[in-house]
């Protein structure tokens, strides 16, 4: 056993962090000025979205551990680019459903924008009968994907999107939209195991997103505590403030472990094992994500309660990642079913 990143993984982490410094947010005001088109182009050129394209052997170019590293590093700086929703989620689903190579490469190379069609709770993927659905983290998607049970297997269908209405979602860095879709124009078979694998992939990356957001939020609060002076000393010298931040780092440390393992499981273990690890990672991340971001708002004091503060942006991002594809109770129910049997 050796649970450490390889040198290549560390290099990827550094590269994505560098990118995230350029295209991430330093304050909510940056939302208006960040150049999303240039960012998306740069991200595509880095090839992050293409890391899960399949080689001729059918194996992905990079392991899900690399993807989780990248997703977490982007979330740490609140990069407002739709990597998960419009690229990684649909591309992985198309790959697992063995969609034609051209379909997949159009998404992984950023030529065509796709999305997953969610139900109104954002907790489940819609089925092929869907007419009105919700999309997340993608704008101007040309088609959406549904998943429908079909005997012991599933079918992934591709729907044209006919109209999009943006909602004012809680997360200011990623869009939630209501979309009207047409009848499926193509469909592919998805095995039950691959459906579990896709779900494991998506849940793990949402946990990685929460992880990155927690890290970025805490980093900012800790730096602030070193320079904010009250009673003639930095507030970070007060034990009450130190312990709040330490407790947050403990929660982050627990999340790191479960996310890395869940990401590793996706390519290495059975679908059922990968899904249990993914639900575990997301359950843990969700159980600590909001408390950590709330702590961060408190460390910033009055400033942390203002619209101009970055603190609420982290909390908003965490909340939406929390509910997408199922919140804490949904994750725990899945874990309980796997460990205790279905009741």
């Amino acid at each position, binding site marked *: *056993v*050796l*649970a*450490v*990143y*390889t040198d290549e*993984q560390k290099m990827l982490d550094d590269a994505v962090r560098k990118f995230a410094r350029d295209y991430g947010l330093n304050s909510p005001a940056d939302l208006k000025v960040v150049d999303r088109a240039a960012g998306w182009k740069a991200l595509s050129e880095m090839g992050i979205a293409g890391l899960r394209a399949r080689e001729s052997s059918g194996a992905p170019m990079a392991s899900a*551990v690399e993807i989780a590293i990248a997703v977490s590093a982007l979330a740490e700086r609140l990069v407002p680019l739709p990597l998960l929703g419009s690229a990684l989620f649909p591309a992985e689903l198309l790959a697992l459903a063995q969609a034609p190579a051209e379909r997949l490469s159009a998404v992984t190379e950023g030529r065509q924008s796709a999305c997953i069609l969610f139900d109104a709770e954002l907790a489940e993927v819609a089925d092929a009968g869907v007419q009105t659905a919700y999309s997340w983290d993608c704008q101007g998607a040309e088609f959406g994907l549904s998943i429908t049970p079909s005997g012991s297997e599933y079918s992934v269908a591709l729907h044209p999107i006919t109209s999009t209405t943006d909602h004012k979602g809680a997360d200011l860095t990623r869009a939630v939209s209501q979309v009207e879709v047409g009848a499926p124009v193509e469909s592919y078979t998805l095995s039950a195991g691959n459906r579990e694998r896709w779900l494991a992939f998506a849940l793990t990356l949402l946990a990685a997103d929460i992880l990155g957001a927690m890290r970025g939020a805490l980093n900012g609060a*800790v730096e602030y*505590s*070193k320079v904010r002076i009250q009673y003639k*000393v*930095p507030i*970070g*010298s007060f*034990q009450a*403030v*130190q*312990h709040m*931040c*330490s*407790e947050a*780092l*403990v929660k982050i*440390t*627990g*999340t*790191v*472990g*479960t996310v*890395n*393992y869940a*990401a*590793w499981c996706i390519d*290495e273990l059975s679908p059922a094992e990968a899904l249990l*690890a993914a639900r*575990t990672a997301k*359950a*843990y991340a969700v*159980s600590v994500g909001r408390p950590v971001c709330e702590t961060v708002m408190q460390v910033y004091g009055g400033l942390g309660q203002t619209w101009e503060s970055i603190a609420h942006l982290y909390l908003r991002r965490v909340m939406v990642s929390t509910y997408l594809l199922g919140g804490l*109770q949904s*994750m*725990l*129910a899945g*874990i*309980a079913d796997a*460990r*205790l*049997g279905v*009741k």
Partner: protein
Amino acid sequence: MDYRDTPEEAAFRADARAWFAEHTSADWTHVEDEQEQTRLRRQWHQNLYKAGYAGMAWPTEYGGLGLNAVYSAILAEEAVSTQAPQLPPYIGYMGAAIQAYGTEAQKRHFLPTMLSGEIAWCQGFSEPEAGSDIASLRTRAVLEGDEWVVNGQKMWTSGAHEADWCFLLVRTEPDLPKHKGITCLLTEMDRPGIEVRKIYLSNGIPETSEVFFDNVRIPASQMLGQRGDGWPIAMTTVSFERGPIEVGAVQRYEIVLEKIEQAAAERGLLGDPRIRSELALAYARGQALRLASLEELSARVSGVAAGEAGSLCKLLWSESEQALQALSLDVLGVDAWTGKEAEKMAEYFSARAVSVYGGTAQIQKNIVAQRILGMPR
């Protein structure tokens, strides 16, 4: 990232599993007589040593196996799985201190018998007035000729009532700043003037002791390091503390969770959505503990200086363990209060101590804030 055993680790695990299955006596935990318990534990330690399962990460020149901490972790996991007793924790850190500060003669004299279990040790650090603030210890030692004369009191000296020797910190230079005036002495426990009193913890078990020193005379040759080296020696032992996997805490957590799940099943609670959620959350917390500890262990084995990261794992451990034991009482319900499950009540109280021993949760949080997050003092 690789969470699988290497072929060497897998072979070691299989051998250890077979050995424990064959040699662990099933009635270990049911021996009531304390002297018999002590005898069995010592015998067990010596058996482990003879079988090559002591000192996994010790240098071979002092009788160890020269392997890394992953093997210590595997050994702990397999030992806990068969409910075998653990090797005493001092072997790692006191052994490291003697290796670092001992004269060649001291190393040759003390290390082999410490490892083999022939000589049992205890650690005389804490005192009634020196708990978290260990450097303020007051037990005095005055040099008279070629002997130190020791007076004072130690507290939380685990295993003192069955130890042959004590690894003792004393104040030798009362006029120097508190960190500079401490010296380390090694003493037999049967010297005249040493008295041990057991401390019964809230779980009802005499897990630790207080030790009184009344004009105890210790040969000057039994000093470890130089006069005034006590604090750096103490820091060596602290930095050598092992993570939750190596002390078997992770494996124990998983076994306790399985027992709680069984208890819930026996009480017909597996259909209760709240209990199902609590059990699932306990599983998730246990996984977070296991996987974060595995990363900390891996970082140490790869030569990345860990140090403070141990405090994060300790905090994950105490929080998850205490939440798990609270859940245990919740599931057992009235059986926990009426004495039907007295052992489980004792386990609950044992878990309360996890956030105190080996550095309280508050001290760990100070360390995390100041040394990892770099917050100002």
